[in-house]
Every structure is written in structure tokens, then in C-alpha cells.
């Protein structure tokens, strides 16, 4: 007995199982309380229809909605994918509005007999009561309904039935104390919270007798595949580290990152003002990854998928081809539509569904737009959780960060500590021409280049060039060729002058040498003449006697 008491029954929702330490307490009643539209029925349906190897589907007793409406909800939420969901038994326990009540003494005998029958037929111990508080509206004798419900809760306990009962908030306000307070061990409250005109669904475990449970308010989301909830346990740093690299699609940028690109499974952020080419760089990486056979998902916060495909076409990136080849998927998400937590949940769901090797978030700074009342630190914590999740899943992430012109080049994100490779882009104006500059802000584990390079967007794609460094400093962009030509002209002019002077010098030197030779020859001749004259005179002198006088 004690072993069944501590056991759990999966809720059919992975995140909720983790919050409840395994699931709803097996063999005990659990009450889910919440106003209309908070998702309580969905929680109940997820439990009844969950796919389970051994056990068949549960039994749903409906007190409010028609069985057909419930079956429609099951089908609409994709819960019916499991074969068992189609065979789920729905017991119609809606009070007959036309029935007359004569005499206050009655029991809910039909309810119990029919549930017992349904449980026996389906061979399950999982039971759902949807909106059981409707009974209080149908019968005047509230005290009797109270005691009858309590008996049924007790009976479910004795029979080891895991009962999940949903009710509205009004039982508490109308009848003093809610039935859940004495009849059940576990109470979960679901609510809708509206903040900054954005609705967030939340879930909180109010009590869970005799076991540990999380006390936090958990946001959750309802998507096409049912209910999704993500407890913060994802924030564990358990990501696997890969030595493999992913090319950026631009050889020069790869070279700036030590020749091969970014690490697989790392987070890269491109920061820059509007028009610096962040999205194009991200698209370039996406295209390259697709071309190498990887699966890529591009999540655009500010463009529609078609706009993205068209805009990247202009630089010769054929993303459409990759979409057709089913390697690339593009979805758009409007940042104003959902609360932060719901965004996080949806992105995580998406990643699990698509299973991409590379995820592009363009621009991740769009998440700031909804964080007005939640603040930048909330956005940071959301992104931290997202990064941890993505790293845990081994997904390489590329995100862009739009820096507003008013921010003077400072990123509003303040999350550079979470980023492995941070590539910064900026616009520089000189002589009326804007140039795009790129440099590596940081690159964990890579020999990042310290150079500022020029980033060019051409019809043929993206290129990164060395800026022109002349006597007047660094020159970028279109000015580069003009300055280069001017510098070349001046250089050549000087070179020609030097050449001319050198020739002149040579000529002078030669003239000088020739003159010197000539002079030497003349002087030598003169000397020789003088010497010859002396010899001649000496010879004539020899004819005379010594001292004839």
C-alpha cells in the first residue's frame, strides 16, 4: 500500500512531471483549480489521453462540456495522435437542466455506478472529473453535494484511482471553502495573468501533501501540440562540447576566426546598428550550413519568411533552394504577441520539433521589446535559459543583436558573457560615404583576429576586405579606390622625378669623370713636354765644357 501511495502517475506533460516530482500522486485525488479559459480541461485531457505503453486511456467524466466537444478538443490539440486517445471513454455526467428536484435527500449514486462501470470496461485507474463544480449549480442542496463529492473522493482513494478533478475559482468564493481543501491532497492552480497587455498562463502547485514539490509560479503555453511547460531545471550547464567547426560561408571571416569558422554547438552573436548587414551574415551562415547538409531553422522576429527569402536573394543567397530541399525552415514570430516566458517555451518546443543543427534568432534583441515591465534582467535570464537549453541540445546558435542608433554603439543586450563568439559590426562615415566595418569582439577558444576589416555587401555576396591604409590613415569603402588612385598618381609622379634626377646625376657624374680624364691627360702631356724639353736642353748643354768661363 505504501509503495503505491508514493508512486506517481505521469501527467502526460513532461515539464509538469518534473515540477510534481514524477506526476500526480497515484491512487489519490488531485484538484486543478482555475477560472475559465486557463487551460484546466487541457491539463485533464493530457492526463487522460497520454500515450502509455501498458495502460489504456483514462476515463473522462464531463460535468459541463458535451462529450463531443471534449472529443473535438482532444483532436484539435493533437492529443489524438496516440491511438489510445481515440478510444478514451467519456462519461456524460452533465446535470439534466430539465430534471425536477422533489425532496432534498438524494445521493450521487448514478455518478458512482457509471464511473465504476466505465473504469471496469476500460481497465484503467485514471479518472478525470471535468468541471465537477457544475453540480453545485444544478442542485440546491449544496451541503449534500459537498458530502457526496467528499464520499466519491474517499471512494476513489480506497479504489486506488488516480483522480484528476478540475473546478472553477468560484467554489471558493461562493461556498466559503473549496472542496479541494479537505477532499484532496494535491491542489494545482492555473491562471491567466495580463501584464503589459500580454497574457501569460501560469501554473502553481498550492499544496501537495506528503511530498516535495516546487513552489514557483510556472508560465506555460498552449500550442498546436497541447500544453507545454518548462521548469528552470533546463539551466543546468550540461552541454556537450564539440571541437568541430562550422564555416561562416565567408572565407575571410573564417580566417579572422582562426581559419575554420565557429565551434559547432557554440553561440555566435552579430551586434550592430540597423543596416550593418547582421541578418545577411546570419543568412550566409545558414546557407553554408544547409549546403553542407545540416538542418537549419531560421527564426525571424521582424521579417516574414517570404521577406527573408527575397531580401537574401539580393546578395545571391538562394535560401529558397534550401527550403525546397527541406534543409531550411523559416518561421516568423511577432515579439509583441507573447510574453517572454511563452516565447522561450515556444522556441524550445520548436527546436525539439524541428531538431536543427543550427538555429538563427534574428534579431534576438526583439525580445527586449516585450520586456518593458519585466525589465532587461528578465530578458537576460530568459536568454540565459535559452542558451543553456540550446547548448544542452547541441544546437549551434547564431543570433543578431540590433543596436539602436541612440545607444551610441553599445549593445542593449548586456549578454556578451553568454556569447562564445561576438562579432561586432558598425558603420563609419568618411567624406559623405558610409562603410561597414567588422571586427571580432571576442571569440572563446579561437585565435580571433584583432584587426578591423571592411565588410562589403555586393550583388554576388558578402566579402570582407582589408581596409586601405595610406599616408592619410585607414580608408574604407568607395573612397578606397579614389584615395588609392590618388596616392598611386602621387607616388608615380615622385617616382618619375626621382628617376629623372637620378639620370641627371648619373649624367653629371659621367661628365665629371670624362672631364677629369681629359684634364689628367692634358696635364700629363704638359708634364711630359716639360720633361722632354729639360732632357733636350740637358743634352745640348752636354756639348759644352764644364764651366767654360
Amino acid at each position, binding site marked *: 500500500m505504501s509503495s503505491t501511495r508514493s508512486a506517481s502517475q505521469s501527467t502526460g506533460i513532461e515539464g509538469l512531471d518534473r515540477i510534481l516530482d514524477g506526476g500526480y500522486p497515484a491512487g489519490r485525488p488531485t484538484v486543478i483549480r482555475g477560472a475559465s479559459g486557463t487551460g484546466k480541461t487541457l491539463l485533464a485531457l493530457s492526463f487522460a489521453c497520454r500515450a502509455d505503453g501498458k495502460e489504456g486511456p483514462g476515463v473522462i467524466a464531463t460535468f459541463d462540456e458535451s462529450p463531443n466537444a471534449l472529443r473535438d478538443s482532444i483532436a484539435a490539440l493533437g492529443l489524438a495522435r496516440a491511438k489510445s486517445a481515440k478510444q478514451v471513454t467519456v462519461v456524460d*455526467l452533465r446535470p439534466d437542466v430539465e430534471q*425536477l428536484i422533489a425532496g432534498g435527500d*438524494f445521493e450521487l449514486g*448514478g455518478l458512482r*455506478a*457509471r464511473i*465504476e*462501470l466505465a473504469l471496469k470496461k476500460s481497465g484503467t485507474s485514471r479518472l478525470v472529473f471535468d468541471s465537477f463544480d457544475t453540480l453545485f449549480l444544478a442542485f440546491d442542496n449544496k451541503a449534500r453535494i459537498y458530502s457526496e463529492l467528499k464520499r466519491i473522493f474517499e471512494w476513489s482513494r480506497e479504489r486506488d484511482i488516480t483522480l484528476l478533478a478540475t473546478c472553477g475559482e468560484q467554489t471558493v468564493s461562493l461556498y466559503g471553502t473549496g472542496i479541494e481543501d479537505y477532499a484532496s491532497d494535491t491542489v494545482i492552480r492555473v491562471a491567466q495573468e495580463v501584464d503589459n497587455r500580454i497574457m501569460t498562463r501560469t501554473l502553481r502547485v498550492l499544496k501537495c501533501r506528503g511530498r516535495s514539490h516546487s513552489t514557483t509560479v510556472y508560465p506555460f503555453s498552449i500550442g498546436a501540440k497541447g500544453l507545454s511547460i518548462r521548469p528552470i531545471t533546463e539551466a543546468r550547464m550540461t552541454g556537450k562540447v564539440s571541437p568541430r567547426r562550422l564555416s561562416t560561408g565567408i572565407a575571410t571571416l573564417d580566417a579572422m576566426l582562426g581559419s575554420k569558422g565557429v565551434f559547432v554547438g557554440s553561440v555566435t552573436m552579430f551586434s550592430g546598428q540597423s543596416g550593418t548587414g547582421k541578418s545577411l551574415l546570419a543568412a550566409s551562415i545558414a546557407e553554408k550550413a544547409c549546403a553542407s547538409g545540416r538542418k537549419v531553422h531560421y527564426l525571424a522576429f521582424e521579417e516574414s519568411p517570404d521577406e527573408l527569402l527575397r531580401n537574401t536573394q539580393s546578395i545571391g543567397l538562394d535560401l529558397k533552394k534550401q527550403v525546397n530541399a527541406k534543409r531550411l525552415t523559416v518561421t516568423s514570430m511577432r515579439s509583441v504577441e507573447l510574453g517572454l516566458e511563452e516565447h522561450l517555451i515556444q522556441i524550445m518546443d520548436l527546436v525539439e520539433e524541428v531538431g536543427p543543427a543550427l538555429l538563427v534568432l534574428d534579431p534576438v534583441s526583439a525580445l527586449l521589446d516585450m520586456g518593458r515591465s519585466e525589465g532587461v534582467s528578465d530578458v537576460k535570464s530568459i536568454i540565459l535559459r535559452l542558451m543553456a537549453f540550446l547548448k544542452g541540445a547541441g544546437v549551434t546558435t547564431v543570433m543578431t543583436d540590433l543596436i539602436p542608433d541612440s545607444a551610441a554603439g553599445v549593445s542593449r543586450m548586456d549578454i556578451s558573457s553568454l556569447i562564445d563568439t561576438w562579432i561586432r559590426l558598425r558603420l563609419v562615415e568618411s567624406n559623405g560615404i558610409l562603410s561597414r566595418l567588422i571586427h571580432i569582439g571576442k571569440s572563446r577558444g579561437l585565435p580571433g583576429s584583432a584587426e578591423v576589416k571592411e565588410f562589403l555587401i555586393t550583388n554576388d555576396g558578402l566579402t570582407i576586405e582589408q581596409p586601405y591604409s595610406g599616408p592619410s590613415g585607414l580608408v574604407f569603402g568607395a573612397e578606397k579606390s579614389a584615395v588609392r588612385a590618388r596616392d598611386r598618381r602621387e607616388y608615380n609622379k615622385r617616382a618619375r622625378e626621382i628617376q629623372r634626377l637620378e639620370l641627371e646625376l648619373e649624367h653629371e657624374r659621367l661628365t665629371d669623370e670624362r672631364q677629369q680624364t681629359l684634364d689628367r691627360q692634358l696635364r700629363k702631356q704638359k708634364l711630359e713636354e716639360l720633361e722632354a724639353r729639360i732632357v733636350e736642353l740637358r743634352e745640348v748643354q752636354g756639348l759644352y765644357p764644364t764651366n767654360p768661363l
Partner: protein
Amino acid sequence: MTSKTKRTKYLLTLYIAGLTPAARAALANLKTLCQEYVGQECYEVEIVDINKNPQAAEDELILATPTVIKRLPPPIRRMVGDLSGRDMVIAGLDLKQT
């Protein structure tokens, strides 16, 4: 004599979940009222214990017990509780004094 053929036959089904105090009270109240208003030969009460025959409760979508269903004469009427509200039962089940 002619009135005998004209007299309407009442067919009533009482659904109970075991012989609870409410079930006993309902049966007693129903019989008393029928004797009084319909007459000995003109009514028939079938008792269904849904603890023994839960499928019957499912077929008739019985929620609370005791529930009495008047099948004949039409229209079909349902009534829940121990049937201690005399006037309500007479009006609800359309019992005509003969």
C-alpha cells in the same frame, strides 16, 4: 366501466443505488401518491438498482439517485430526490386525480 378503458396507465421507473434512506423514502412517497391519485391498477413502478445494473444508469444518463422517470403517459418526465415535496411530485409527474 367505460372509464376503466379510458383510464391512463402510468409506467414509472425508479432508479436507486441500493436501499438507502432516500431510496426507501422515495419508493414510499411514490407509492402513496400513486395510490392516492392514480389508483391501484393504473400504475406500475419498476425499480432498478443501478449498483446491480450500472449499464441501465449509463443508458438513461442517471446522475443522482433516487431518480424516477415517468415513461407513460407522455411526455417523459424525470424527478430527482426522495419525493417528499408532495405538490412538486404531483405537478412534475402530472398525476391526475381520478
